[in-house]
């Protein structure tokens, strides 16, 4: 730690507990930060693309997660370094905003930083590098918008959307069933989408998982699935034309919040109370019955007596349904959530065509499926899978695919994947760099080279020779002016990404570039770090 001296030559201390801290300054700090960040991105690199490998993560409690999803890997990685945490946040913000392309953004940021490192070694000032990156990024985003292709979508023909969802699923462990899953995603999104406003509320799509069965057994339900069963074992397993009473009050005698004491001092009082209690139950059930409801969905539990009464009055009931699900059911069936028995009226009931209980395998698992809701804006994907790990990974993959479809409904522009758009941008940027006068041109070239890292990683993961593949694609893109040539990861035999149907949304690509550049600039700006000494 450097010391500061006053005018009499005595050292004085600026930072508190200075001896207990480590200070890294200047280039040293930037280098250390870059090293930390690239170490994260290098780990992620092998997960990129359809042939990317998985990572196995063991949590603190010994639970095993096998995944290929960038955001999940980083989240579970238990990172301690501040700069590495920035990378984690980077992936998370891509995940929140777009939902897909989390691995890509981390790999790109890592590549940018590696390039920046080389420029630093050649004595370029960090802020100059930042400027150059900025200009290059702006150019790239412009170019992406130019080469973007507007996807034709009509209500009848969803094949394009399905293909886009399949691209998102191709890198996941579920890629064997990508066709079926992609179709499910598209149906789910279209079921809840508001096409006029181009808005999709993904919260209306629930992804439920049940261990057991095969992935092929997964099914799409236009409605809601809740992980509960009928409260009385003998209630009918199916209710058609259900009128649903959604209750948030328990089928129990009231429990006033105020502390009170009810004292019984005579036999009459005892009997009175008994009668009152019995009346409670009968009046509760009567109210429900009178409103015309034939299904009660309750957030709380039932007393045995109430349960039996409901059954005798031919009313089905589901108890202990979670708050979120209650809201979802209310939204979907057009019912109102009723907090008190006095307020039950026929208008407040929800409607659904069919409510049924479903069984699985040799186990006793049951779920309740609510279909044909009054307001169709609800969809559930029920995922089946061999084991919990496959199930969780499928859920994550479906989330990504759903996001892609949503983004396409918001904005129909797409760019071609397989590294095609990165290569196109890289070509444009290096051309612009040649025309640039200032020292930024070096930074711009570096940016172009960093963009090449994506196709290189794709080729590497697919077992192709990276340099050869990249150079041949670049040459063909320049010669033929086709911006849709990319890495043939699956060995189909063509570099034409239009034929291979590998799309990504323009929004996602743009976001990737912007976020990665931003992070890179941020790390380049840090020139001083104070850390508590790890020894203490």
């Amino acid at each position, binding site marked *: 730690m450097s010391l500061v001296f006053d005018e009499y030559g005595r050292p004085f201390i600026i930072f508190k507990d200075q001896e207990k801290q480590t200070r890294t300054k200047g280039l040293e700090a930037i280098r250390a930060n870059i090293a930390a960040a690239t170490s994260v991105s290098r780990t992620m690199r092998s997960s990129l693309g359809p042939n990317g490998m998985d990572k196995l993560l063991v949590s603190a*409690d010994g639970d095993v997660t096998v995944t290929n999803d960038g955001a999940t890997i980083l989240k579970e990685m238990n990172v301690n370094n501040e700069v590495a945490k920035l990378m984690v946040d980077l992936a998370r913000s891509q995940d929140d905003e777009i939902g897909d392309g989390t691995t890509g953004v981390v790999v790109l940021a890592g590549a940018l930083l590696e390039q920046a490192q080389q420029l630093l070694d050649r004595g370029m000032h960090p802020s100059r590098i930042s400027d150059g990156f900025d200009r290059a990024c702006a150019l790239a985003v412009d170019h992406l918008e130019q080469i973007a292709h507007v996807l034709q979508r009509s209500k009848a023909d969803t094949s394009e959307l399905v293909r886009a969802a399949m691209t998102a699923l191709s890198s996941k462990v579920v890629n064997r069933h990508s066709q079926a899953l992609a179709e499910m995603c598209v149906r789910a999104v279209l079921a809840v989408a508001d096409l006029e406003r181009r808005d999709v509320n993904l919260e209306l799509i629930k992804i439920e998982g049940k*261990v057991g069965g095969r992935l092929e057994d997964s099914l799409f339900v236009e409605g809601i699935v809740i992980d509960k069963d009928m409260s009385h074992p003998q209630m009918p397993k199916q209710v058609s034309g259900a009128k649903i009473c959604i209750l948030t009050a328990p089928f129990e005698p009231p429990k006033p919040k105020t502390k009170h004491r009810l004292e019984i001092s005579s036999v009459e009082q005892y009997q009175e109370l008994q009668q009152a209690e019995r009346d409670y139950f009968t009046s509760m059930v009567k109210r429900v019955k009178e409103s015309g409801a034939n299904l009660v969905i309750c957030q709380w539990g039932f007393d045995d007596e109430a349960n039996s009464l409901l059954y005798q009055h031919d009313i089905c009931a589901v108890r202990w349904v979670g708050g979120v699900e209650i809201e979802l059911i209310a939204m979907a069936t057009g019912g109102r959530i009723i907090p008190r028995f006095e307020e039950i009226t026929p208008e407040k009931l929800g409607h659904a065509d069919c409510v049924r209980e479903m069984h699985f395998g040799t186990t006793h698992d049951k779920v309740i499926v609510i279909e044909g809701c009054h307001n169709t804006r609800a969809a559930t994907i029920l995922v089946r899978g061999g084991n919990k790990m496959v199930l969780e990974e499928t859920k994550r993959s479906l989330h990504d695919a759903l996001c892609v479809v949503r983004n396409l409904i918001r904005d129909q522009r797409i760019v071609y994947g397989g590294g095609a758009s990165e290569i196109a941008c890289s070509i444009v940027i290096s051309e612009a760099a040649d025309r640039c006068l200032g020292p930024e041109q070096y930074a711009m070239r570096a940016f172009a080279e960093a963009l090449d890292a994506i196709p290189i990683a794709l080729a590497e993961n697919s077992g192709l020779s990276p340099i050869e593949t990249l150079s041949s694609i670049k040459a063909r893109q320049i010669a033929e002016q086709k911006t849709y040539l990319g890495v043939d990861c699956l060995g189909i035999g063509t570099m034409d990404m239009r034929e291979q149907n590998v799309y990504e949304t323009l929004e996602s690509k743009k976001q990737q570039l912007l976020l990665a550049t931003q992070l890179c600039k941020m790390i380049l700006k840090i020139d001083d770090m104070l850390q508590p000494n790890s020894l203490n």
Partner: protein
Amino acid sequence: MNQIKVSPTGLQKVLRSSSSEEKGENARLSLLTGALAITDLLKTTLGPRGMDKILLSPSGELNVTNDGATILKAVHVDNPAVKILVDIALVQDDEVGDGTTSVCCLAGELLREAEQLLERHMHPQLIVAGYRAAAREALVALEQSATSLPAAETAAGYDALLNVARTALSSKVLSQCREHFAKIAVDAVLRLHGSTNLDHIKIIKKLGGTLADSFLADGFILEKRFGVGQKKRVENAKILIANTPMDTDKIKIYGARVRTDSITRVAEIEQAEQEKMMEKCRRILSYGCNVFVNRQLIYNRPEQFFTDHGINSIEHADFDGIERLALVTGGEIVSTFDSPGGVRLGECAVIEEIMIGDDPVLHFQACRANEACSVVIRGANQQILDEAERSLHDALCVLSQLAVEPRLVLGGGCAEALMANAVDAFAARMTGKSALAAEAFARALRNLPGIIADNAGFDATSIVAKLRAAHAQGDGSAGLDIQTGDIADMRKLGVVESFRLKAHMLGSATEAAEMILRVDDVIKAAPRKMDPAHPHM
């Protein structure tokens, strides 16, 4: 000035302390080692001559078993790959009920073959691709060889079911009297009339006697007794099944309590309470039942009342008990007693208290819904009983699933050899490196009969070679005869297994192997610190 040193791999540095990372070859190696270790452990239990394992729990409980799922559940291994294998075995148990050992062994063999390919620098993704293609091909071959089960009512169908049960039981402790148990299992499943709900078959274990004394009881057995002083036999029983408190009927309104100023008042209120209970009893009486079954306790007073009025009462039948009873007798479960006539009572021809070993149990005969039955297993010690129950459960699962998917394939390694030959033929036509993986897949399949032969003390290599030759010459039903140690016609020996079991095994094993092979990086978080003062927190 302290310098921050960055090691070449780097990631370790940015992880929280005592987290660890294994990359690439290292990661794969450690996963494979773990997976192979656990399959080697399981391997010796495979097949009719497989050996058993003794599992000792930390509390000193002893468990002797041959059941793959049970062994895997009990073994604690600190290796993530093992967790994956345990998972698939448990799911196999859930979905099909049997074949848990086979699925692990196949996954293990697939990984063992993959390890050799990896040593030859083949990319894991290529291996995965080859495995997938091979699994598809194997499934097609399996489907082609599958034969449909004859209708269960015919003699041929009954024999076929017996064969399946015999094959499923042959690898278990029950094999000494498998003929007996196969018959029990088939008879029990036939009562279900095509339902897969095994709830209707209750397995009751009673110490004493020998396994051969086990029997299938007609009707339903409840491990309870009638109340004191009640008849031991009820004919034409009308059963009211209830879930209601019959001890004291508390007032449920919150905060209610009794406060009185004199003893007489207390006595009055007590009287009122009693009266309330009696009132309930009278109402129950008005339902016209002659047997009353309650999930909760029945106190002496109401029990006395029932006895006086000629009603037999059964108390404390647990949740499962009353639900099952409601199912078999066709009654409704009630908790309020205000509407006599509106409730369907359960019916049953005879309820009798009988003795099994030393314990009295209730036997419900000729119930309205005559689908239920009980199997009583007798055995010399608890371990045998437990193991017998597991084995019987496996057989029952397999048989009941045949109602859903009635196709059969041949056992004794025949199906595996058949699939292996199909995959071999397919691999020969394949172009590209994945063909090597497909060949490896065939080898792994062939290793299964090899393991069975090994466990029986035969020359595995020569038997596998013979099997392969027989299948190549078009003998599609050749398999391993465990008695002679030679190959024989499985169709003649009656060694058959369900198609669903084999198909599921193939699918899960491939999936698990693929999952492990696709991993190139293992990141372990630091184990959560245990508080030494509270080791169980």
